[in-house]
């Protein structure tokens, strides 16, 4: 099969696929950075938001942090397996990472259900608007990452395009990074 030139070219010294992922992440930094920067500005300007933040479940947030850190471990171990040419092991580790994504989303859905039942919705006030927007945008990234990982894992199992294991891994670590900042901002600072 003839591969597109961009797939094999590496004009910058970084393989094109990896360079593309870094560009995606550079734009993601601006997206999440802008959102979290705005939240921080408003949070510092509105001390009463601490009383709203008191209603978020710190233990659920901490558990999800544990889940994402662990899924990052399986993602980097998948990359290690791919580097060693072990596609099957890489695929299994990517599936484990997807499992982490699923657990994260289940915990989040229980959390949101409880909060909405208590009357804290996206229209309640500025804090809850930021809370649902930031966590929701992050959740969409988790879903997107899990879908891509399933596709990459299916190919990796056949020993095909193993370099993609690293690429989805880099993206997944970024998703983890964003949560590392969301956790203290939305759950700990009360």
């Amino acid at each position, binding site marked *: 099969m003839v591969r597109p030139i961009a797939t094999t070219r590496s004009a910058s010294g970084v393989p094109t696929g990896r360079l593309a992922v870094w560009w995606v992440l550079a734009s993601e930094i601006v997206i999440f*950075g802008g959102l979290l920067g705005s939240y921080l500005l408003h949070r*510092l300007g509105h001390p009463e938001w601490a009383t709203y933040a008191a209603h978020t479940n710190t233990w659920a947030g*901490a558990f999800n942090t544990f889940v994402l850190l662990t899924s990052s471990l399986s993602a*980097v171990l998948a990359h290690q397996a791919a580097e060693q040419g072990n596609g099957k092991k890489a695929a299994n580790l990517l599936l484990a990472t997807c499992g982490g994504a699923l657990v994260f989303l289940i915990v989040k859905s229980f959390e949101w259900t409880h909060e909405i039942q208590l009357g804290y919705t996206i229209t309640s006030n500025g804090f809850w608007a930021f809370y649902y927007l930031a966590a929701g945008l992050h959740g969409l990234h988790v879903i997107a990452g899990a879908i891509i990982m399933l596709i990459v894992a299916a190919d990796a199992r056949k020993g095909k395009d193993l370099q993609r294991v690293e690429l989805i891994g880099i993206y997944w670590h970024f998703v983890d990074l964003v949560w590392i900042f969301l956790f203290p901002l939305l759950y*700990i600072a009360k």
Partner: protein
Amino acid sequence: MSTPSSHSHEHGHEAHGEAHHTNYVKVWGILLVLLAISLIGPELGIRVVTLLTAFGIALVKAYIVAKYFMHLNIERRFVVQLLTVCLGLMVLFFLATAPDVMKHWGMNWRNDSAKNANIPEAPHHEAGGHEAAPAHGAGE
């Protein structure tokens, strides 16, 4: 003889091969210890300790993930510079807008709505006709 393209691929593989000498389980263990500290610190109820353990440790965790899991320590320098410029832009955005958003008055302006939202007992009709509860005015 390798082409420039394949050479750079080889370079990438060699560098990333070196990365795999890292003990990832150990790095993960350190991250979990930091997570525990970020949970325990705020329980003490001391503001400085909360800031250091929650946000200071978040920065340390982010650094560890970026360095060891994303392998930024062995990535080409221009990639790190690209990401740093984006982060710098966000800091600039924060610093440039902070005076307007976080303060409620300046030399030639006042933001009564935000001010009143911070003082729930203040009469809301003074906030430019906003009758909403403080909670609704909080984000204004």
